[in-house]
């Protein structure tokens, strides 16, 4: 077999694995979020499709979405309307290229790793503005503007929070950052960075309490108001994919990625494979984010922007300064 064919085969295989993960993840999370939200609200959630826990509910949702008529409203900006769901979905998949699921379970360990993640995810804002503008609807334009303001405000603290682990590990590669946490997870020395990352990450995901761009009670549905059927579902595929991506990156940067907890004896560490550790931590964070979403009320837009620029940004800058000051101490203690 020629070499290029082998390369192509591997590329196709890896791409299909990622796509498969993204799709199954969405199926699981639709069900999990409905069940979890129901429990928080003292309900039982879906239970009839796939008794007794309603585990086939997402499949029923998929068939409903697939069988719906493809409606393109009159007087929409056609090209932008068709492209927006694709532009939001592609970056959501591309992020997984650098996510280290295990010591050898990674598509491509880029040496610009975390910078690549920041670069790729910045397209979400463009896609939301495209969808909001293309729909030719005043609610969707308001939503797109809010989303743009929010994503710009929270991207800065998000990227600044990432700098802490990068300083400690001395590399941008995600695999390198995970390996550097063998002795100690960075959440112990970067608690501030972790909290800033999680908060800003939730805002980037447009999830409550930061879901201003999808505020149902004031904007009907938000930037995706004129979308239905499969086109609409692409926005939700991207949302659930991004939810896991933020949790996976937080796990990688602060919770030791696929490493077992450092305090466990070596014999116990060997029992559970790294990928299980990684997925357990990631889905734990996903559940925490859902928990916050269904517990806290939505903030106002001015509170949201004030919080981002006047609180989160200074805190993330202070975190970098603190990390720099404490770096020699941590080295002397042998923690890093």
């Amino acid at each position: 077999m020629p070499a290029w064919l082998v390369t192509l085969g591997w590329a196709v295989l890896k791409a299909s694995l990622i796509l498969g993960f993204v799709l199954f993840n969405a199926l699981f999370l639709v069900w999990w979020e409905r069940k979890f939200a129901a429990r928080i609200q003292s309900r039982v959630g879906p239970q009839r499709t796939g008794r007794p826990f309603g585990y086939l509910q997402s499949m029923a949702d998929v068939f409903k979405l697939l069988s719906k008529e493809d409606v393109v409203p009159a007087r929409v900006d056609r090209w932008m309307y068709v492209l927006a769901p694709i532009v939001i979905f592609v970056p959501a998949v591309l992020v997984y290229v650098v996510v280290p699921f295990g010591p050898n379970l990674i598509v491509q360990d880029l040496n610009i790793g975390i910078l690549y993640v920041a670069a790729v995810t910045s397209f979400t804002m463009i896609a939301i503005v495209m969808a909001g503008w293309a729909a030719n609807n005043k609610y969707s334009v308001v939503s797109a503007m809010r989303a743009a303001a929010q994503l710009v405000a929270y991207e800065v603290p998000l990227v600044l929070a990432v700098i802490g682990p990068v300083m400690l590990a001395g590399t941008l590669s995600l695999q390198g950052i995970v390996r550097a946490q063998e002795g100690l997870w960075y959440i112990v020395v970067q608690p501030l960075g972790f909290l800033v990352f999680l908060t800003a990450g939730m805002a980037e995901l447009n999830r409550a309490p930061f879901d201003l761009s999808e505020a149902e009670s004031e904007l009907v549905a938000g930037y995706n108001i004129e979308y239905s059927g499969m086109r609409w579902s692409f926005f939700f595929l991207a949302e659930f994919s991004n939810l896991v991506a933020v949790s996976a990156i937080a796990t990688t940067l602060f919770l030791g990625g696929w490493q077992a907890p450092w305090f466990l004896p070596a014999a116990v560490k060997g029992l559970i494979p790294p990928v299980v550790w990684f997925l357990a931590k990631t889905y734990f964070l996903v559940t925490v984010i859902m928990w916050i979403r269904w517990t806290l009320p939505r903030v106002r837009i001015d509170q949201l922007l004030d919080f981002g620029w006047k609180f989160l940004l200074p805190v993330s800058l202070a975190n970098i300064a603190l990390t720099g000051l404490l770096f020699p101490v941590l080295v002397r203690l042998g923690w890093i």
Partner: protein
Amino acid sequence: MTGLQIAFLALSAVMLFAAWKVVTSDIIVHAALWMVLSFVAVAGIFLTLHAEFLFAVQLLVYAGAITALVIFAIMLSDIRELRGEGEPAGAGLGRRVRRLVSRRLGLAPAAVAVGFAAVMYSVYRATPWPGLPPGDPAPSTLAIGRELFGTYVVPFELASIVLLVAMVGAIVLTLREGGREKEEKRP
């Protein structure tokens, strides 16, 4: 021709076409999106030159942040101007020509473009370009960081100060008296 050369040519064609559409689109939001495509093509060219760091920064800063600023500028602009009022009447080629000779939409932008091109050309002629052999990998992120905070630390800090001054200036310009802002908030 190697695969990389074909990729370089294709990306350049996409970039130039997108740049052309940026200045000829009638709808300003379309122009902004064509600009994003042009930025992405430039990032792709960086990638074909093995400059991964520049690739990521190009996407993060230009396709992400600069585009957000442009979109804010559009949304804060006068709606009549966005709808194309003040444009020459008619359609097709005649309108294009009328537009080209009008002072605001044709001559002034052309003068700016020519001036910018002249500056860029003189910079291009005056700079001694390092003759890197083709296919040689660009410096790594580590090397860029060392250069930036070692050799070029004074220009780097100067640029930071200029940006800081611009930021303070922007805040001063938009700052309102405490009382007036409260008054304006009431419907």
